[in-house]
């Protein structure tokens, strides 16, 4: 059954005032390796159909992965029955009307047709390179093809087919490790040779790390670490629901200069520089949203529900999938930190004393209003002294406001890297140099 047939079957069975059908069809394969061999190798074929039934301002949701016609009819009826039970919710202003959509190419047949043998060949390169150096590699390669369709009874009909390829590795030496990752919608975006070489270079640089006293230091962050800044800021409050509930770092800061003027963060779903999606999970076209422009907090992103709560607001096309578990709220899925003009080498050269960091690990919010986050450095932390990498140090724990960190952004990298994001989209990020970053403890 294709998406149009699924949507028509649900619509035909629905008694609701308004009905929405979201179908996400997925073919995903993942080859996982550790200790220089493939230990897990999986594939999945699934479809998830979510029906929202609206009776006046009441919404019922039903979710299933059964596409048989009689089951689709039952799904529509279940969502309707759930909606009937509720009191009115005057904050809900209805499903969004249709808008003109622009298609964007994000499908690569080479990803969709990638075989287990091809994935094995790619990760095999990493494993052999690691073994040749007496190291141990772990990681994974994912190839996915997805078809997302949204239709509603007001006339929305949106369908987007796209692919995703991602490969990452941590390579471990005697007492050091290195990390590298590649993401893209084209298979050519993941290239095992350079991936292994990058991780191995950090293994070599990081050998025999020493203890290091926690404190406040200048830092140069590789794009992997920068990605965490954007993802946690997104999680802690780039969505309008968080702002409306008073738990966002943007509360009380919109219109204010809160970061350095070289910091501009935008969400751009149509940019082919990331993993483009032309519309959100309500079928609303994605608008370009400047979240932070030249250091000034501008706006969170909206879906139709949060836009309906504010006079004159329109959805920016950032709805997340509806869920019986409650509204997660709108979220940016295609974030870009605008590149600057400084190379990582120049950032290091300009640093009298500081730390060069590969990536952050297990980061969690401590205080959401200031986006205070704690986490560890991992897979390569190095002391910079007098403009040069002096020596590696053991991983450090930081506890730091990410808003404040970007207030002290002294330089932004000249090139960006696309990385798969926790929101199901991607971030495009350069390296950054921050004048201050607070480390609170160390590990063994």
């Amino acid at each position, binding site marked *: 059954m294709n998406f149009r047939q699924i949507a028509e079957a649900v619509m035909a069975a629905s008694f609701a005032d308004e009905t929405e059908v979201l179908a996400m069809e997925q073919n995903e394969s993942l080859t996982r390796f550790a200790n220089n061999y493939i230990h897990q190798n*999986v594939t999945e074929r699934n*479809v998830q159909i979510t029906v929202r039934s609206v009776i006046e301002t009441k*919404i019922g949701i039903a979710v299933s*992965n059964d596409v048989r016609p009689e089951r689709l009819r039952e799904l529509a009826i279940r969502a309707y029955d759930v909606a009937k039970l509720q009191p009115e*919710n005057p904050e809900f202003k209805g499903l969004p009307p249709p808008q003109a959509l622009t298609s964007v190419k994000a499908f690569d047949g080479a990803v969709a047709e990638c075989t287990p043998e091809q994935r094995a060949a790619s990760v095999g390169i990493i494993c052999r390179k690691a073994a040749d150096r007496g190291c141990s590699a772990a990681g994974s390669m994912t190839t996915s093809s997805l078809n997302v369709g949204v239709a509603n009874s007001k006339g929305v009909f949106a369908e987007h087919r796209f692919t995703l390829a991602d490969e990452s590795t941590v390579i471990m030496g005697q007492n050091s490790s290195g990390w590298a990752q590649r993401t893209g919608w084209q298979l050519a975006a993941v290239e095992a040779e350079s991936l292994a070489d990058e991780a191995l270079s950090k293994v070599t640089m990081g050998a025999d790390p020493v203890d290091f006293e926690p404190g406040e230091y200048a830092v140069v962050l590789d794009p992997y670490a920068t990605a965490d800044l954007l993802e946690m800021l997104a999680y802690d409050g780039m969505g309008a629901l968080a702002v409306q*509930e008073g738990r966002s770092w943007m509360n009380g800061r919109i219109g204010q200069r809160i970061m350095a003027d070289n910091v501009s963060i935008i969400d751009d779903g149509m940019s082919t520089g990331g993993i483009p999606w032309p519309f959100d999970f309500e079928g609303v076209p994605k608008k370009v949203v400047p979240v932070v422009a030249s250091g000034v907090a501008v706006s969170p992103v909206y879906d139709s529900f949060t836009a309906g709560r504010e006079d004159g607001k329109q959805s920016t096309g950032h709805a997340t999938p509806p869920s*019986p*578990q409650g509204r997660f709220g709108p979220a940016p899925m295609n974030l870009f930190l605008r590149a600057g003009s400084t190379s990582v080498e120049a950032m290091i050269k300009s640093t009298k004393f500081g730390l060069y960091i590969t990536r952050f690990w297990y980061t*969690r919010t401590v205080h959401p209003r200031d986006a205070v986050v704690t986490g560890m450095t991992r897979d390569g932390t190095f002391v910079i002294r007098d403009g040069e990498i002096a020596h590696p140090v053991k991983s450090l724990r930081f506890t730091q406001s990410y808003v404040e960190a970007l207030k002290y952004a002294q330089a932004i990298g000249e090139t960006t890297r696309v990385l798969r994001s926790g929101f199901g989209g991607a971030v495009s990020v350069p390296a950054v140099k921050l004048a201050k970053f607070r480390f609170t403890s160390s590990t063994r």
Partner: protein
Amino acid sequence: MKEFISHALDVAKAKGARYADIRIIDHREQVVTVKNGNVDGIGDQYSQGFGIRVLVGNSWGFASSAYVAMAEIERVATLAVKIAKASATVPGEDVNLGSSVTSTGQYTTPIEVDPFSISLEQKLDLLFRADEILRRNSGVKVSEANAIAIRNHKFFSNTEGALVEQIIYEGGGAIAATAVSETEVQIRSHPNSFRYQGTSGWEYVTNADLVGNAERVAAEAVALLSADVCPSKETTLILDSSQLALQIHESCGHPTELDRVFGTEAAFAGRSFLTTEKRNKFRYGSDIVNLTADSVRATGLGTFGWDDEGVPASSTPLVRNGEFVGYLMSRETASKLALESNGCMRADGWNRIPLIRMTNVSLEPGTWELDDIIADTEDGIFMETNRSWSIDDMRLNFQFGTEIGYEIERGKRGRLLKNCTYTGITPDFWKSCDAIGNSRHWRLWGTPNCGKGEPMQTMGTGHGASPARFRNVKVGVFR
């Protein structure tokens, strides 16, 4: 169903598998969430499908599909073998699964009230009542109440002759109040942060008394806005049992997962400091620290009849009188230590392979009354209900935050404290434990959101604990 199962295993064997198993699962989940007097989310989720895991030579393959039909089973079994053969091009060590697993039987979670027999109207009524009480306090910006019911019906069979059928029920519910000032956000939850769940019927929600606790939760959230900030110092720390449950999860449960120890989670979930030479030779905690993994305790989120390799539920000591003695194991990893699996392989759905996961990892009760622990503490802080958590990839350096805290001064609970955090190194922390509450204070909590594996799997785990005291802990990491 048996016809599907037999066909899948026959095809896998015919294509070259020396071992194969299949899981067929029908999952139903019903969630109701109320927020600020409105329904925030409500509905049913159904998912069905099957997954076939095969071992060809010494390489694994797995394929799954939502389409439970004979032709699809044949396609998926064939694909699983093809994938395993591709794995063999980047080969590893020989795989030994140990003794054959030939379990047969049926298991159903013992419940008093089927959570699906409670109508959505009844569930909404309960949640609206609790939510309304939360909102009576004008200082509450966001009020939330939720309830969840899960029914997981699964069949497992393997080429060694195992065939088991299980129906696992989960029930749960919780409330939370968020208070907001110009500069900060404070939250209080009951009975626990995240969702509060157990393998149980609707009685689990009833016993949580959401309505009876709503007024207190709202008042505490608002009071926290004007409370003093947790001081920065090294002091005595007393943890309530729910926060201690997460401490156990992160600093004992995860590092005793034997797949981490063997490095197979290195790139994602991380490794472990509890390497194999430490078993029976490493002081993990003080003499009073006894930690157990079990899959048999009533209401635990890690309680079942058999794991997803068909191994029967069991109980295993992990730390005995402070000494590290045991791991959470699969058939393959246990055989590397010349042991038998203790049944810890679990998958979060038909479309995922089983991984070593915590079952119910618990701190056994001590001898103290909580009041006596406090009375015996000259200077310290009592912390309650998790708010943030982070730990390094070897499971050594951790930092936790709690929703609420109280100063302990000369044996008495004193002023309210907010933004409480503490940090430490796992074995140092557990070696500093000098008092554990007795069985009257012991409670089995559920952690329904444990993430591990690629593709990511979310698993429910159980953790029992009484309140306990730890000396010389660094608190107030970020003021």
